Protein backbone atom coordinates (compact mmCIF):
# COMPACT_ATOMS: atom_id res chain seq x y z
CA UNK A 1 0.00 0.00 0.00
CA UNK A 2 1.20 3.51 -0.81
CA UNK A 3 2.22 4.98 2.55
CA UNK A 4 0.33 8.24 1.94
CA UNK A 5 -2.89 6.30 1.29
CA UNK A 6 -2.30 4.39 4.48
CA UNK A 7 -1.88 7.60 6.46
CA UNK A 8 -4.98 9.19 4.87
CA UNK A 9 -7.21 6.18 5.39
CA UNK A 10 -6.44 6.24 9.11
CA UNK A 11 -8.06 9.68 9.20
CA UNK A 12 -11.20 8.58 7.35
CA UNK A 13 -13.96 7.00 9.42
CA UNK A 14 -16.09 4.18 8.05
CA UNK A 15 -18.95 5.53 5.94
CA UNK A 16 -17.55 9.08 5.71
CA UNK A 17 -18.87 11.27 2.88
CA UNK A 18 -15.76 12.42 1.04
CA UNK A 19 -14.92 14.95 -1.67
CA UNK A 20 -11.59 14.54 -3.48
CA UNK A 21 -10.41 17.69 -5.26
CA UNK A 22 -8.30 16.77 -8.27
CA UNK A 23 -8.98 13.07 -7.75
CA UNK A 24 -6.76 11.93 -10.64
CA UNK A 25 -7.48 8.37 -11.74
CA UNK A 26 -9.57 7.76 -8.63
CA UNK A 27 -7.02 5.53 -6.84
CA UNK A 28 -7.56 7.18 -3.45
CA UNK A 29 -11.38 7.26 -3.62
CA UNK A 30 -11.50 3.69 -4.90
CA UNK A 31 -9.31 2.70 -1.97
CA UNK A 32 -11.46 4.59 0.55
CA UNK A 33 -14.66 3.15 -0.92
CA UNK A 34 -13.35 -0.37 -0.49
CA UNK A 35 -11.44 0.00 2.78
CA UNK A 36 -13.61 2.56 4.53
CA UNK A 37 -16.99 2.21 2.76
CA UNK A 38 -16.65 5.92 2.06
CA UNK A 39 -19.13 7.61 -0.27
CA UNK A 40 -18.64 10.77 -2.27
CA UNK A 41 -17.17 12.31 -5.36
CA UNK A 42 -13.98 13.23 -7.07
CA UNK A 43 -13.54 16.41 -9.08
CA UNK A 44 -11.22 16.18 -12.06
CA UNK A 45 -10.57 17.92 -15.38
CA UNK A 46 -8.24 15.47 -17.11
CA UNK A 47 -10.38 13.51 -19.62
CA UNK A 48 -8.36 10.28 -19.37
CA UNK A 49 -8.48 10.36 -15.57
CA UNK A 50 -12.25 10.93 -15.71
CA UNK A 51 -12.71 7.88 -17.92
CA UNK A 52 -10.51 5.77 -15.63
CA UNK A 53 -12.56 6.85 -12.60
CA UNK A 54 -15.74 5.80 -14.36
CA UNK A 55 -14.38 2.37 -15.18
CA UNK A 56 -13.38 1.97 -11.52
CA UNK A 57 -16.83 2.92 -10.28
CA UNK A 58 -15.57 6.10 -8.67
CA UNK A 59 -18.13 8.91 -8.95
CA UNK A 60 -16.32 11.71 -10.75
CA UNK A 61 -17.50 15.14 -11.78
CA UNK A 62 -15.83 17.18 -14.46
CA UNK A 63 -15.31 20.47 -12.69
CA UNK A 64 -12.54 23.03 -12.77
CA UNK A 65 -11.69 24.40 -9.33
CA UNK A 66 -10.13 27.54 -10.77
CA UNK A 67 -13.13 28.60 -12.81
CA UNK A 68 -16.06 26.91 -11.08
CA UNK A 69 -14.97 26.72 -7.45
CA UNK A 70 -17.14 24.64 -5.16
CA UNK A 71 -20.28 26.80 -5.37
CA UNK A 72 -22.40 23.77 -6.24
CA UNK A 73 -21.65 22.06 -2.92
CA UNK A 74 -23.62 22.80 0.23
CA UNK A 75 -22.04 23.93 3.50
CA UNK A 76 -20.78 21.08 5.63
CA UNK A 77 -22.05 18.36 3.32
CA UNK A 78 -18.83 16.33 3.49
CA UNK A 79 -17.07 14.75 6.43
CA UNK A 80 -13.72 15.12 4.71
CA UNK A 81 -12.44 17.06 1.73
CA UNK A 82 -9.23 15.69 0.26
CA UNK A 83 -6.71 17.43 -1.90
CA UNK A 84 -3.62 15.44 -2.69
CA UNK A 85 -0.83 17.08 -4.66
CA UNK A 86 -3.14 19.64 -6.21
CA UNK A 87 -3.06 22.67 -3.90
CA UNK A 88 0.07 23.96 -5.63
CA UNK A 89 -1.67 23.72 -9.02
CA UNK A 90 -4.69 25.94 -8.37
CA UNK A 91 -4.72 29.70 -8.91
CA UNK A 92 -5.86 30.66 -5.42
CA UNK A 93 -4.92 28.01 -2.85
CA UNK A 94 -6.08 30.32 -0.07
CA UNK A 95 -9.62 30.45 -1.44
CA UNK A 96 -9.64 26.72 -2.10
CA UNK A 97 -8.73 26.10 1.54
CA UNK A 98 -11.65 28.31 2.63
CA UNK A 99 -13.99 26.43 0.32
CA UNK A 100 -12.71 23.04 1.46
CA UNK A 101 -13.51 23.86 5.05
CA UNK A 102 -16.85 25.39 4.10
CA UNK A 103 -18.15 22.22 2.40
CA UNK A 104 -16.32 19.78 4.69
CA UNK A 105 -15.80 19.43 8.40
CA UNK A 106 -12.21 18.45 7.88
CA UNK A 107 -9.61 18.73 5.13
CA UNK A 108 -6.68 16.54 4.22
CA UNK A 109 -4.10 18.30 2.08
CA UNK A 110 -0.83 17.04 0.65
CA UNK A 111 1.68 19.10 -1.30
CA UNK A 112 5.39 19.15 -2.09
CA UNK A 113 7.69 21.18 0.14
CA UNK A 114 9.61 23.79 -1.83
CA UNK A 115 12.04 24.15 1.05
CA UNK A 116 13.14 20.51 0.75
CA UNK A 117 16.93 20.46 1.01
CA UNK A 118 17.54 19.04 -2.47
CA UNK A 119 15.49 21.84 -4.02
CA UNK A 120 17.30 24.46 -1.92
CA UNK A 121 20.61 22.87 -2.80
CA UNK A 122 19.76 22.65 -6.50
CA UNK A 123 18.76 26.29 -6.69
CA UNK A 124 21.74 27.45 -4.64
CA UNK A 125 24.27 25.42 -6.59
CA UNK A 126 23.05 25.53 -10.18
CA UNK A 127 21.13 28.79 -10.05
CA UNK A 128 18.30 27.14 -11.95
CA UNK A 129 14.74 26.25 -11.01
CA UNK A 130 14.87 22.99 -9.10
CA UNK A 131 13.40 19.71 -10.24
CA UNK A 132 12.80 16.63 -8.15
CA UNK A 133 10.80 13.43 -7.95
CA UNK A 134 7.89 15.34 -6.48
CA UNK A 135 8.33 18.22 -8.96
CA UNK A 136 9.42 16.67 -12.23
CA UNK A 137 8.72 19.68 -14.48
CA UNK A 138 10.46 22.58 -16.19
CA UNK A 139 9.65 26.08 -14.96
CA UNK A 140 7.74 26.84 -18.18
CA UNK A 141 5.50 23.81 -18.34
CA UNK A 142 4.88 23.06 -14.70
CA UNK A 143 1.27 22.84 -13.54
CA UNK A 144 2.60 23.73 -10.09
CA UNK A 145 2.11 27.48 -10.12
CA UNK A 146 1.76 28.10 -6.38
CA UNK A 147 4.65 26.33 -4.74
CA UNK A 148 5.14 26.86 -1.05
CA UNK A 149 6.99 25.45 1.91
CA UNK A 150 5.59 23.76 4.98
CA UNK A 151 6.27 26.96 6.92
CA UNK A 152 4.38 29.04 4.34
CA UNK A 153 1.38 26.73 4.51
CA UNK A 154 1.30 26.74 8.26
CA UNK A 155 1.55 30.53 8.33
CA UNK A 156 -1.44 30.74 5.99
CA UNK A 157 -3.43 28.37 8.20
CA UNK A 158 -2.60 30.49 11.26
CA UNK A 159 -3.66 33.63 9.45
CA UNK A 160 -6.98 32.04 8.44
CA UNK A 161 -7.68 30.52 11.85
CA UNK A 162 -7.42 27.02 10.42
CA UNK A 163 -6.35 24.45 12.98
CA UNK A 164 -3.81 21.80 11.95
CA UNK A 165 -4.94 18.57 13.60
CA UNK A 166 -2.01 16.47 12.40
CA UNK A 167 0.91 16.63 10.06
CA UNK A 168 2.90 13.77 8.58
CA UNK A 169 6.01 14.38 6.55
CA UNK A 170 7.22 11.87 4.00
CA UNK A 171 9.77 11.59 1.21
CA UNK A 172 9.22 11.40 -2.56
CA UNK A 173 8.20 7.75 -2.27
CA UNK A 174 5.80 8.70 0.52
CA UNK A 175 7.99 6.94 3.09
CA UNK A 176 7.79 8.32 6.57
CA UNK A 177 11.50 8.67 7.53
CA UNK A 178 12.92 9.76 10.88
CA UNK A 179 15.08 12.40 9.19
CA UNK A 180 11.99 14.16 7.87
CA UNK A 181 10.38 14.05 11.28
CA UNK A 182 13.48 15.60 12.77
CA UNK A 183 13.67 18.66 10.53
CA UNK A 184 10.59 18.65 8.33
CA UNK A 185 10.88 21.93 6.45
CA UNK A 186 14.39 21.00 5.33
CA UNK A 187 14.28 17.24 5.09
CA UNK A 188 10.63 16.55 4.30
CA UNK A 189 9.59 16.33 0.67
CA UNK A 190 5.82 15.95 0.94
CA UNK A 191 3.54 16.74 3.85
CA UNK A 192 0.10 15.39 4.63
CA UNK A 193 -1.91 17.84 6.69
CA UNK A 194 -5.19 17.27 8.45
CA UNK A 195 -6.94 20.59 8.96
CA UNK A 196 -10.21 21.87 10.37
CA UNK A 197 -12.06 24.98 11.45
CA UNK A 198 -13.73 23.13 14.29
CA UNK A 199 -12.31 23.62 17.75
CA UNK A 200 -13.60 20.44 19.35
CA UNK A 201 -11.42 17.36 19.25
Amino acid sequence: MRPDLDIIQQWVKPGDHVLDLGCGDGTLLDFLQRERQATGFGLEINPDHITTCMSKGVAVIEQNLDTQGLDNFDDGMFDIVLMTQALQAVRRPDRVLDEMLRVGREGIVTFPNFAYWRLRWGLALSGRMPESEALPYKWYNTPNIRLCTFKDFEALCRQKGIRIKSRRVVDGQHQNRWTARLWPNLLGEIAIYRITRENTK
Partner: protein
Amino acid sequence: MPDSLPADSVGIVSPQTYHFDTPIELASGRTLDSYDLMVETYGELNADASNAVLICHALSGHHHAAGYHSLDDRKPGWWDSCIGPGKPIDTNRFFVVCLNNLGGCHGSTGPNSLNPATGKPYGPDFPVVTVRDWVKSQALLADRLGIQRWAAVVGGSLGGMQALQWSLDYPERLRHSVIIASTPRLTAQNIAFNEVARQAITSDREFHGGRYYEHGTLPRRGLMLARMVGHITYLSDASMGEKFGRELREEAYKFGYDAEFQVESYLRYQGERFSESFDANTYLLMTRALDYFDPAYEYGGDLAKALAPAQCEFLVLSFSTDWRFAPERSEEMVNAMISARKKVSYAEIDAPWGHDAFLIPTPRYTDIFTAYMDRVAREVGV
Protein backbone atom coordinates in the same frame (compact mmCIF):
# COMPACT_ATOMS: atom_id res chain seq x y z
CA MET B 1 -27.57 -0.61 -48.56
CA PRO B 2 -24.66 -2.45 -46.93
CA ASP B 3 -23.22 -5.23 -49.11
CA SER B 4 -22.68 -7.24 -46.00
CA LEU B 5 -23.45 -6.41 -42.40
CA PRO B 6 -20.64 -4.78 -40.41
CA ALA B 7 -19.05 -7.08 -37.82
CA ASP B 8 -20.07 -4.76 -34.99
CA SER B 9 -23.71 -4.68 -36.02
CA VAL B 10 -26.47 -6.52 -34.20
CA GLY B 11 -27.41 -7.73 -37.68
CA ILE B 12 -30.90 -8.26 -39.05
CA VAL B 13 -33.50 -7.56 -36.41
CA SER B 14 -37.25 -7.66 -36.35
CA PRO B 15 -39.61 -5.75 -34.11
CA GLN B 16 -42.30 -7.40 -32.08
CA THR B 17 -45.66 -6.10 -30.92
CA TYR B 18 -46.71 -6.56 -27.30
CA HIS B 19 -50.39 -6.15 -26.63
CA PHE B 20 -51.61 -4.91 -23.26
CA ASP B 21 -55.26 -5.10 -22.36
CA THR B 22 -55.15 -3.97 -18.75
CA PRO B 23 -56.21 -0.31 -18.79
CA ILE B 24 -53.43 2.17 -18.08
CA GLU B 25 -54.28 5.34 -16.21
CA LEU B 26 -52.44 8.36 -17.52
CA ALA B 27 -51.18 11.53 -15.82
CA SER B 28 -53.94 13.48 -17.56
CA GLY B 29 -56.52 11.43 -15.68
CA ARG B 30 -57.56 9.67 -18.86
CA THR B 31 -57.26 5.95 -19.43
CA LEU B 32 -56.25 3.80 -22.37
CA ASP B 33 -58.15 0.52 -22.16
CA SER B 34 -55.74 -1.39 -24.33
CA TYR B 35 -52.64 -0.59 -26.32
CA ASP B 36 -49.74 -2.05 -28.25
CA LEU B 37 -46.06 -1.40 -27.76
CA MET B 38 -43.65 -2.02 -30.63
CA VAL B 39 -40.40 -3.42 -29.28
CA GLU B 40 -36.97 -4.46 -30.51
CA THR B 41 -34.44 -6.39 -28.46
CA TYR B 42 -30.79 -7.19 -29.08
CA GLY B 43 -28.55 -9.68 -27.29
CA GLU B 44 -29.60 -12.37 -24.83
CA LEU B 45 -31.27 -12.00 -21.46
CA ASN B 46 -29.15 -13.93 -18.93
CA ALA B 47 -30.50 -16.50 -16.50
CA ASP B 48 -31.13 -14.11 -13.61
CA ALA B 49 -32.35 -11.34 -15.94
CA SER B 50 -29.77 -8.95 -14.54
CA ASN B 51 -28.23 -7.78 -17.82
CA ALA B 52 -31.15 -5.87 -19.34
CA VAL B 53 -30.67 -2.32 -20.57
CA LEU B 54 -33.59 -0.12 -21.57
CA ILE B 55 -33.03 2.43 -24.32
CA CYS B 56 -35.44 5.37 -24.27
CA HIS B 57 -35.93 7.28 -27.48
CA ALA B 58 -36.07 10.99 -28.15
CA LEU B 59 -38.62 13.19 -29.93
CA SER B 60 -38.61 11.55 -33.34
CA GLY B 61 -37.14 8.19 -32.34
CA HIS B 62 -38.65 4.75 -32.21
CA HIS B 63 -37.99 1.11 -31.33
CA HIS B 64 -35.48 0.54 -34.13
CA ALA B 65 -32.30 1.61 -32.33
CA ALA B 66 -29.77 -0.75 -33.88
CA GLY B 67 -29.17 -3.18 -36.73
CA TYR B 68 -31.06 -3.51 -40.00
CA HIS B 69 -34.55 -4.71 -40.81
CA SER B 70 -33.32 -6.03 -44.14
CA LEU B 71 -30.24 -5.92 -46.32
CA ASP B 72 -32.09 -3.34 -48.40
CA ASP B 73 -32.07 -0.80 -45.56
CA ARG B 74 -30.14 2.32 -46.43
CA LYS B 75 -29.30 3.03 -42.79
CA PRO B 76 -29.18 1.08 -39.53
CA GLY B 77 -31.22 1.94 -36.40
CA TRP B 78 -30.95 5.44 -34.96
CA TRP B 79 -28.39 4.63 -32.24
CA ASP B 80 -26.44 1.94 -34.06
CA SER B 81 -23.24 3.89 -33.27
CA CYS B 82 -23.61 3.01 -29.60
CA ILE B 83 -25.41 -0.36 -29.59
CA GLY B 84 -23.84 -3.56 -30.90
CA PRO B 85 -21.11 -6.13 -30.27
CA GLY B 86 -18.11 -4.30 -28.77
CA LYS B 87 -19.89 -0.94 -28.80
CA PRO B 88 -20.55 1.10 -25.62
CA ILE B 89 -23.81 -0.79 -25.04
CA ASP B 90 -22.27 -4.14 -25.83
CA THR B 91 -24.86 -6.64 -27.04
CA ASN B 92 -22.46 -9.52 -26.30
CA ARG B 93 -23.02 -8.71 -22.65
CA PHE B 94 -26.31 -6.84 -22.38
CA PHE B 95 -29.87 -7.65 -23.35
CA VAL B 96 -31.01 -4.40 -24.91
CA VAL B 97 -34.66 -3.36 -25.11
CA CYS B 98 -35.95 -0.43 -27.10
CA LEU B 99 -39.58 0.42 -27.71
CA ASN B 100 -41.65 2.92 -29.58
CA ASN B 101 -43.31 5.00 -26.88
CA LEU B 102 -47.03 5.26 -26.38
CA GLY B 103 -48.38 7.95 -28.69
CA GLY B 104 -45.67 7.21 -31.23
CA CYS B 105 -46.25 6.56 -34.89
CA HIS B 106 -44.04 3.54 -35.51
CA GLY B 107 -46.28 0.71 -34.44
CA SER B 108 -47.11 1.49 -30.82
CA THR B 109 -50.59 2.77 -30.13
CA GLY B 110 -50.80 6.44 -30.96
CA PRO B 111 -52.95 9.07 -32.66
CA ASN B 112 -52.75 7.25 -35.99
CA SER B 113 -54.01 3.96 -34.49
CA LEU B 114 -57.66 2.95 -34.69
CA ASN B 115 -59.73 3.97 -31.70
CA PRO B 116 -61.66 0.81 -30.80
CA ALA B 117 -64.52 2.97 -29.55
CA THR B 118 -65.11 4.65 -32.90
CA GLY B 119 -63.40 2.43 -35.44
CA LYS B 120 -61.61 5.54 -36.72
CA PRO B 121 -58.08 6.76 -36.02
CA TYR B 122 -57.75 8.51 -32.64
CA GLY B 123 -56.32 11.66 -34.14
CA PRO B 124 -56.74 14.55 -31.69
CA ASP B 125 -58.72 12.28 -29.34
CA PHE B 126 -55.59 10.40 -28.38
CA PRO B 127 -54.71 11.40 -24.82
CA VAL B 128 -51.70 13.63 -24.22
CA VAL B 129 -49.14 11.34 -22.60
CA THR B 130 -46.25 12.39 -20.40
CA VAL B 131 -42.76 11.13 -19.65
CA ARG B 132 -44.20 9.62 -16.50
CA ASP B 133 -46.80 7.70 -18.51
CA TRP B 134 -44.10 6.35 -20.77
CA VAL B 135 -42.06 5.16 -17.83
CA LYS B 136 -45.15 3.47 -16.42
CA SER B 137 -45.77 1.65 -19.70
CA GLN B 138 -42.09 0.71 -19.90
CA ALA B 139 -42.32 -0.81 -16.42
CA LEU B 140 -45.28 -2.89 -17.58
CA LEU B 141 -43.23 -4.00 -20.56
CA ALA B 142 -40.38 -4.95 -18.20
CA ASP B 143 -42.84 -7.10 -16.21
CA ARG B 144 -43.87 -8.80 -19.43
CA LEU B 145 -40.26 -9.46 -20.38
CA GLY B 146 -39.44 -10.85 -16.93
CA ILE B 147 -37.11 -7.99 -16.05
CA GLN B 148 -37.38 -7.04 -12.39
CA ARG B 149 -34.46 -4.62 -12.41
CA TRP B 150 -32.69 -2.95 -15.32
CA ALA B 151 -28.91 -2.95 -15.25
CA ALA B 152 -29.31 0.51 -16.76
CA VAL B 153 -31.92 2.78 -18.27
CA VAL B 154 -30.26 4.90 -20.95
CA GLY B 155 -31.50 7.81 -23.01
CA GLY B 156 -30.49 10.97 -24.83
CA SER B 157 -32.52 14.19 -24.88
CA LEU B 158 -36.19 13.31 -24.26
CA GLY B 159 -34.89 9.77 -23.67
CA GLY B 160 -32.70 11.11 -20.85
CA MET B 161 -35.81 12.55 -19.20
CA GLN B 162 -37.28 9.05 -19.14
CA ALA B 163 -34.07 7.68 -17.62
CA LEU B 164 -34.34 10.34 -14.89
CA GLN B 165 -38.06 9.69 -14.32
CA TRP B 166 -37.35 5.96 -13.95
CA SER B 167 -35.05 6.67 -11.01
CA LEU B 168 -37.85 8.56 -9.24
CA ASP B 169 -40.86 6.37 -10.02
CA TYR B 170 -39.30 2.90 -9.79
CA PRO B 171 -36.16 3.48 -7.71
CA GLU B 172 -35.64 -0.19 -6.94
CA ARG B 173 -36.00 -1.27 -10.56
CA LEU B 174 -32.77 0.13 -12.04
CA ARG B 175 -29.12 0.05 -11.06
CA HIS B 176 -27.98 2.89 -13.29
CA SER B 177 -29.58 5.84 -15.00
CA VAL B 178 -27.63 7.22 -17.95
CA ILE B 179 -28.84 10.68 -18.93
CA ILE B 180 -27.28 12.16 -22.06
CA ALA B 181 -27.76 15.65 -23.53
CA SER B 182 -30.87 16.14 -21.46
CA THR B 183 -32.43 18.55 -19.01
CA PRO B 184 -34.53 18.39 -15.83
CA ARG B 185 -37.04 20.79 -17.43
CA LEU B 186 -37.46 22.83 -20.57
CA THR B 187 -36.58 26.49 -20.54
CA ALA B 188 -38.98 29.13 -21.86
CA GLN B 189 -36.88 29.22 -25.03
CA ASN B 190 -37.25 25.45 -25.48
CA ILE B 191 -41.03 25.68 -25.05
CA ALA B 192 -41.12 28.61 -27.44
CA PHE B 193 -39.47 26.54 -30.18
CA ASN B 194 -41.95 23.74 -29.55
CA GLU B 195 -44.81 26.21 -29.82
CA VAL B 196 -43.57 27.43 -33.20
CA ALA B 197 -43.46 23.81 -34.36
CA ARG B 198 -46.99 23.15 -33.13
CA GLN B 199 -48.31 26.32 -34.70
CA ALA B 200 -46.75 25.33 -38.01
CA ILE B 201 -48.61 22.01 -37.87
CA THR B 202 -51.97 23.14 -36.56
CA SER B 203 -52.20 26.09 -38.94
CA ASP B 204 -51.65 23.89 -41.99
CA ARG B 205 -54.89 23.81 -43.99
CA GLU B 206 -54.54 20.06 -44.34
CA PHE B 207 -54.42 19.52 -40.57
CA HIS B 208 -58.22 19.51 -40.19
CA GLY B 209 -58.08 19.79 -36.41
CA GLY B 210 -55.96 16.65 -36.30
CA ARG B 211 -58.46 14.53 -38.31
CA TYR B 212 -56.46 14.58 -41.51
CA TYR B 213 -56.53 10.78 -41.76
CA GLU B 214 -60.28 10.94 -42.34
CA HIS B 215 -59.79 13.61 -44.98
CA GLY B 216 -57.20 11.55 -46.78
CA THR B 217 -54.61 14.31 -46.44
CA LEU B 218 -51.47 15.04 -44.45
CA PRO B 219 -50.32 18.39 -43.01
CA ARG B 220 -47.03 17.98 -44.85
CA ARG B 221 -46.25 21.67 -45.07
CA GLY B 222 -46.74 22.24 -41.35
CA LEU B 223 -44.81 19.17 -40.29
CA MET B 224 -42.01 20.12 -42.64
CA LEU B 225 -41.77 23.60 -41.10
CA ALA B 226 -41.89 22.10 -37.62
CA ARG B 227 -39.02 19.80 -38.46
CA MET B 228 -37.01 22.59 -40.07
CA VAL B 229 -37.22 24.69 -36.92
CA GLY B 230 -36.44 21.68 -34.76
CA HIS B 231 -33.52 20.67 -36.91
CA ILE B 232 -31.88 24.08 -36.53
CA THR B 233 -31.98 23.68 -32.78
CA TYR B 234 -30.30 20.26 -32.98
CA LEU B 235 -27.25 21.65 -34.76
CA SER B 236 -24.76 24.29 -33.69
CA ASP B 237 -23.88 27.52 -35.45
CA ALA B 238 -20.38 26.13 -35.99
CA SER B 239 -21.50 22.77 -37.37
CA MET B 240 -23.95 24.43 -39.76
CA GLY B 241 -21.22 26.84 -40.75
CA GLU B 242 -18.84 24.03 -41.46
CA LYS B 243 -21.36 21.93 -43.35
CA PHE B 244 -22.94 24.66 -45.47
CA GLY B 245 -21.30 28.00 -44.86
CA ARG B 246 -22.82 30.47 -47.27
CA GLU B 247 -22.50 28.03 -50.12
CA LEU B 248 -24.94 28.57 -52.96
CA ARG B 249 -26.53 25.83 -55.02
CA GLU B 250 -25.67 27.75 -58.16
CA GLU B 251 -22.99 30.27 -58.88
CA ALA B 252 -24.79 33.57 -58.42
CA TYR B 253 -27.69 35.12 -56.55
CA LYS B 254 -30.93 34.86 -58.47
CA PHE B 255 -32.67 37.70 -56.68
CA GLY B 256 -35.64 35.55 -55.81
CA TYR B 257 -36.92 33.55 -52.85
CA ASP B 258 -36.33 29.97 -53.89
CA ALA B 259 -33.80 27.81 -52.04
CA GLU B 260 -30.53 29.36 -53.19
CA PHE B 261 -28.30 28.60 -50.25
CA GLN B 262 -27.30 24.99 -49.60
CA VAL B 263 -28.56 25.26 -46.03
CA GLU B 264 -32.01 26.16 -47.33
CA SER B 265 -32.26 23.19 -49.62
CA TYR B 266 -30.89 20.87 -46.93
CA LEU B 267 -33.51 21.99 -44.42
CA ARG B 268 -36.28 21.70 -47.00
CA TYR B 269 -35.15 18.23 -47.97
CA GLN B 270 -34.92 17.05 -44.36
CA GLY B 271 -38.28 18.61 -43.57
CA GLU B 272 -39.99 17.07 -46.58
CA ARG B 273 -38.59 13.63 -45.91
CA PHE B 274 -39.67 13.84 -42.27
CA SER B 275 -43.16 14.99 -43.18
CA GLU B 276 -43.62 11.84 -45.27
CA SER B 277 -42.58 9.46 -42.51
CA PHE B 278 -43.77 11.01 -39.23
CA ASP B 279 -47.22 11.60 -37.87
CA ALA B 280 -48.14 15.23 -37.14
CA ASN B 281 -50.30 14.39 -34.13
CA THR B 282 -47.44 12.37 -32.65
CA TYR B 283 -45.16 15.37 -33.16
CA LEU B 284 -47.60 17.55 -31.21
CA LEU B 285 -47.81 14.95 -28.46
CA MET B 286 -44.05 14.45 -28.14
CA THR B 287 -43.37 18.19 -27.94
CA ARG B 288 -46.03 18.51 -25.24
CA ALA B 289 -44.47 15.67 -23.26
CA LEU B 290 -41.22 17.63 -23.44
CA ASP B 291 -42.91 20.84 -22.23
CA TYR B 292 -44.63 19.16 -19.31
CA PHE B 293 -41.58 17.30 -18.01
CA ASP B 294 -40.54 18.87 -14.70
CA PRO B 295 -40.11 16.37 -11.86
CA ALA B 296 -39.19 19.20 -9.45
CA TYR B 297 -42.55 20.94 -10.00
CA GLU B 298 -44.35 19.03 -7.25
CA TYR B 299 -41.50 19.89 -4.87
CA GLY B 300 -41.65 23.64 -5.29
CA GLY B 301 -38.97 23.53 -7.96
CA ASP B 302 -36.50 21.73 -5.70
CA LEU B 303 -35.04 18.96 -7.87
CA ALA B 304 -32.89 17.65 -5.01
CA LYS B 305 -36.08 16.98 -3.05
CA ALA B 306 -37.66 15.28 -6.06
CA LEU B 307 -34.58 13.06 -6.28
CA ALA B 308 -34.89 11.81 -2.70
CA PRO B 309 -36.35 8.39 -3.63
CA ALA B 310 -33.69 7.60 -6.26
CA GLN B 311 -31.42 4.66 -5.44
CA CYS B 312 -29.55 4.16 -8.69
CA GLU B 313 -26.21 5.56 -9.75
CA PHE B 314 -26.28 8.28 -12.37
CA LEU B 315 -24.12 9.08 -15.34
CA VAL B 316 -24.85 12.49 -16.82
CA LEU B 317 -23.20 13.62 -20.07
CA SER B 318 -23.52 16.93 -21.89
CA PHE B 319 -22.01 18.36 -25.06
CA SER B 320 -20.19 21.67 -25.22
CA THR B 321 -22.06 23.14 -28.21
CA ASP B 322 -25.52 21.83 -27.34
CA TRP B 323 -27.68 24.93 -26.99
CA ARG B 324 -31.01 23.13 -27.03
CA PHE B 325 -30.20 21.35 -23.76
CA ALA B 326 -27.03 23.18 -22.79
CA PRO B 327 -24.40 21.75 -20.41
CA GLU B 328 -25.75 24.13 -17.74
CA ARG B 329 -29.02 22.15 -17.74
CA SER B 330 -27.11 18.92 -17.12
CA GLU B 331 -25.12 20.64 -14.38
CA GLU B 332 -28.36 21.71 -12.70
CA MET B 333 -29.34 18.08 -12.62
CA VAL B 334 -25.92 16.96 -11.37
CA ASN B 335 -25.90 19.60 -8.62
CA ALA B 336 -29.32 18.48 -7.44
CA MET B 337 -28.03 14.89 -7.36
CA ILE B 338 -24.99 16.01 -5.36
CA SER B 339 -27.24 17.84 -2.88
CA ALA B 340 -29.46 14.79 -2.63
CA ARG B 341 -26.34 12.69 -1.92
CA LYS B 342 -26.84 10.47 -4.94
CA LYS B 343 -23.91 8.81 -6.63
CA VAL B 344 -23.35 10.69 -9.88
CA SER B 345 -20.64 11.06 -12.48
CA TYR B 346 -20.61 13.89 -14.96
CA ALA B 347 -18.62 14.93 -18.00
CA GLU B 348 -19.05 17.68 -20.55
CA ILE B 349 -17.87 16.38 -23.89
CA ASP B 350 -16.28 18.77 -26.31
CA ALA B 351 -18.07 18.20 -29.62
CA PRO B 352 -19.01 20.64 -32.37
CA TRP B 353 -22.35 19.15 -33.43
CA GLY B 354 -24.76 20.77 -30.99
CA HIS B 355 -27.56 18.67 -29.55
CA ASP B 356 -27.14 16.00 -32.25
CA ALA B 357 -23.73 15.15 -30.76
CA PHE B 358 -25.36 12.48 -28.60
CA LEU B 359 -25.94 10.43 -31.72
CA ILE B 360 -22.44 10.88 -33.11
CA PRO B 361 -19.58 8.71 -31.83
CA THR B 362 -16.64 10.94 -30.90
CA PRO B 363 -13.60 9.38 -29.20
CA ARG B 364 -14.15 10.85 -25.75
CA TYR B 365 -17.88 10.19 -25.77
CA THR B 366 -17.32 6.59 -26.84
CA ASP B 367 -14.52 6.09 -24.28
CA ILE B 368 -16.56 7.36 -21.35
CA PHE B 369 -19.73 5.58 -22.38
CA THR B 370 -17.79 2.34 -22.91
CA ALA B 371 -15.91 2.62 -19.60
CA TYR B 372 -19.12 3.27 -17.68
CA MET B 373 -21.18 0.52 -19.32
CA ASP B 374 -18.29 -1.92 -18.98
CA ARG B 375 -18.40 -1.35 -15.26
CA VAL B 376 -22.18 -1.80 -15.22
CA ALA B 377 -21.68 -5.12 -17.02
CA ARG B 378 -19.03 -6.24 -14.51
CA GLU B 379 -21.33 -5.25 -11.67
CA VAL B 380 -24.10 -7.56 -12.93
CA GLY B 381 -21.57 -10.28 -13.71
CA VAL B 382 -21.55 -10.32 -17.51
